[in-house]
């Protein structure tokens, strides 16, 4: 009898050696005359356990990890094909505490299915949302998304339904749906996981968006640093097309939607939506002034829905289960769930999807289990390179857009980077300015010049050159960047800088915050 063994093909699993493990299992099975069906699934998102090997047994799926090729023979000896005991055995996968406590809505299939199996996808509620959407008119689809309370998961948290309504109202024979998959924030990988581990979900979400507003063409703009995601998306688009889920006559409905992947080229600023549109058009990724909004004049001058991967990937579930189901999760004006990404110096790093309202402390202590180095956590950066550095005194803050905005921080794309007590916050502040200098599109002066001046002044502070005076100068500069930049690149680079200054003045050689001095 054939036994199904799962070895993830997620790029983090590959980076930890999953391909070698898969080969070793195939080789060992052949040598022992065991019939093994190897499925390359997505990752469960428990990256400290990768490569995580699962076996389908009579009692359900059981896990072993992290597995190296050298462990494989011993696993066979231990009878792992029947769920046998071994030092790497983790028991039933779904019972692992890290997974068990989660509220996986968008990530419900992640790691469970074969990402390129349409049958798997459909057997796990895939295409239920699109099937329902095909029976609705555009306004009804948009209302469902609006009622769900879904807000843009890329970081700006703008209500998705309102954006869609604007595109629906715009009068034009040509409209576009664009997916922003330029996931450049350090500490984030949820978009990557969706593209690599459940690509049909994104395709379905974009198709529903197209039906909603009358767009027939979609683009997925993926960063060039994600070659595996690009390959998986292209394969999945081909499969969906061949099965009639994309193309000129979606499942016999007479409705049309086509999808194309466009590859970025290593410019962080192209994650800004208007720079991204410029890039698809074949230009330098320079930010556009708004208005006009992309919803009115977007790609190639046409009304365009532009949403983050997670926003679009959440739409199929909202259509399948209804707005109310999704809205019942969350707190305040932050409805539903957010796939949090626990990254950096953390013992158990990975993907934790929870309803809004979970605290940073729960994420870092219950799920993350402290630092990888074993030292104390000193600071966490939430929301990518433009997000604030939060001292441990902020750990009880609920993860909620408004709660974070209340003290000048952002949730962003839900990435959390943990640093232990060896971190030097003056260096981190310098890096924030340096990154802005490297990645600025150059359109506005505060960002283009300010970031370079910021690096220079922080260098003086680090060298001990009149720190009090120079800290004041950095604060002035941050004020100019905050108020005078066109987009978040220059406008939010001050967040990590100022939060480092406010929370850790001692690292800058100033005893008290300069503000109070």
């Amino acid at each position: 009898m054939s036994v199904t063994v799962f070895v993830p093909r997620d790029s983090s699993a590959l980076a930890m050696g999953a391909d070698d493990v898969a080969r070793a299992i195939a080789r060992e099975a052949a040598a022992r005359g065991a019939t093994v069906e190897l499925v390359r699934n997505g990752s469960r998102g428990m990256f400290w356990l990768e490569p995580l090997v699962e076996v389908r047994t009579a009692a359900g799926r059981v896990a072993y990890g992290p597995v190296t090729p050298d462990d494989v023979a011993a696993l066979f000896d231990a009878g792992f094909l029947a769920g046998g005991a071994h030092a790497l055995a983790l028991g039933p996968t779904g019972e692992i505490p890290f997974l068990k406590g989660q509220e996986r809505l968008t990530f419900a299939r992640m790691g469970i299915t074969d990402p390129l199996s349409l049958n798997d996808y459909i057997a796990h509620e895939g295409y239920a949302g699109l099937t329902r959407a095909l029976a609705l008119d555009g306004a009804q689809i948009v209302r469902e998304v609006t009622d769900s309370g879904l807000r843009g998961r890329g970081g700006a948290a703008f209500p998705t339904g309102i954006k869609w309504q604007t595109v629906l109202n715009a009068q034009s024979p040509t409209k576009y749906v664009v997916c922003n998959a330029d996931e450049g924030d350090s500490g984030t990988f949820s978009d990557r996981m969706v593209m690599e581990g459940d690509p049909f979900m994104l395709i379905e979400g974009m198709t529903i968006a197209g039906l909603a507003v009358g767009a027939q063409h979609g683009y997925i703009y993926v960063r060039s640093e994600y070659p595996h995601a690009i390959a998986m998306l292209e394969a999945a688009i081909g499969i969906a097309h061949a099965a009639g889920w994309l193309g000129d006559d979606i499942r016999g409905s007479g409705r049309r939607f086509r999808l194309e992947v466009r590859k970025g080229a290593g410019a962080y600023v192209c994650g800004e939506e208007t720079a991204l549109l410029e890039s698809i058009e074949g230009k330098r990724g320079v930010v556009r002034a708004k208005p006009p909004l992309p919803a009115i004049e977007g790609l190639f001058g046409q009304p365009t829905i532009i949403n983050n991967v997670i926003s679009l990937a959440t739409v199929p579930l909202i259509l399948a289960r209804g707005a109310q189901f999704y809205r019942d999760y969350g707190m305040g004006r932050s409805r539903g769930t957010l796939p949090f990404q626990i990254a950096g110096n953390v013992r158990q790093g990975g993907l934790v999807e929870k309803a809004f309202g979970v605290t940073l402390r729960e994420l870092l202590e219950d799920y993350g289990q402290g630092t990888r180095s074993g030292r104390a956590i000193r600071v966490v950066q939430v929301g990518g390179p433009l997000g604030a550095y939060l001292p441990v005194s902020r750990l009880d803050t609920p993860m909620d857009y408004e709660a974070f905005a209340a003290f000048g921080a952002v949730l962003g794309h839900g990435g959390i980077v943990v640093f232990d007590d060896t971190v030097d916050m003056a260096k981190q502040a310098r890096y924030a300015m340096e990154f802005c200098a490297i990645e600025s599109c150059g359109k506005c002066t505060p960002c283009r010049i300010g970031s370079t001046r910021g690096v220079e002044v922080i260098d003086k502070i680090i060298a001990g050159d009149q720190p009090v005076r120079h800290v004041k100068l950095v604060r002035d500069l941050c004020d100019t960047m905050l108020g005078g930049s066109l987009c978040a690149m220059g406008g939010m680079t001050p967040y990590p800088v100022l939060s480092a200054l406010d929370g850790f003045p001692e690292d800058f050689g100033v005893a008290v915050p300069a503000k109070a001095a």
Partner: protein
Amino acid sequence: MSSPTAEARRDRIAHIVATRRDMPGALLPILHEIQDAVGYVPADALPEIARALNLSRAEVHGVVTFYHHFRDSKPGRHVIQVCRAEACQSVGSEALAAHAERVLGCGFHETTADGEFTLEPVYCLGQCACGPAVMVGEQLVGRVTLQRFDALVKACADASQDRAAEVQA
């Protein structure tokens, strides 16, 4: 001087430009395909691209130089990218970056004198729970210690030697 390889390269580029020129927003896909085919975007290809897309040479130059991904010269046989973003910093990527420069004997954005290695910074490979992360050619590697980095470099050097031996044989 026009070697057969230079001619083949020109033909290849002309073919790429001809097949892609009519797609909307064709410039980035053209540049990607050229770089994938020849390893970089040769300066002498720009006038031809500009003509085909009805752009000025300055516009094409502006796009090529805007994006970090595009190179204007031939890279080393092995391109090593070291992630230098925050999540990797928190687990020692700066020490790894310094080690890489020392071991390879070249700085970031540089190629070793023997043309073996090009060292590049990268700002996030999406491996933020498995840092420090490195990409060697198309191989992604997580949790790279200094010893692991040395082993990766050695594997590259061995692969080059094997290839050289094959050519001689």
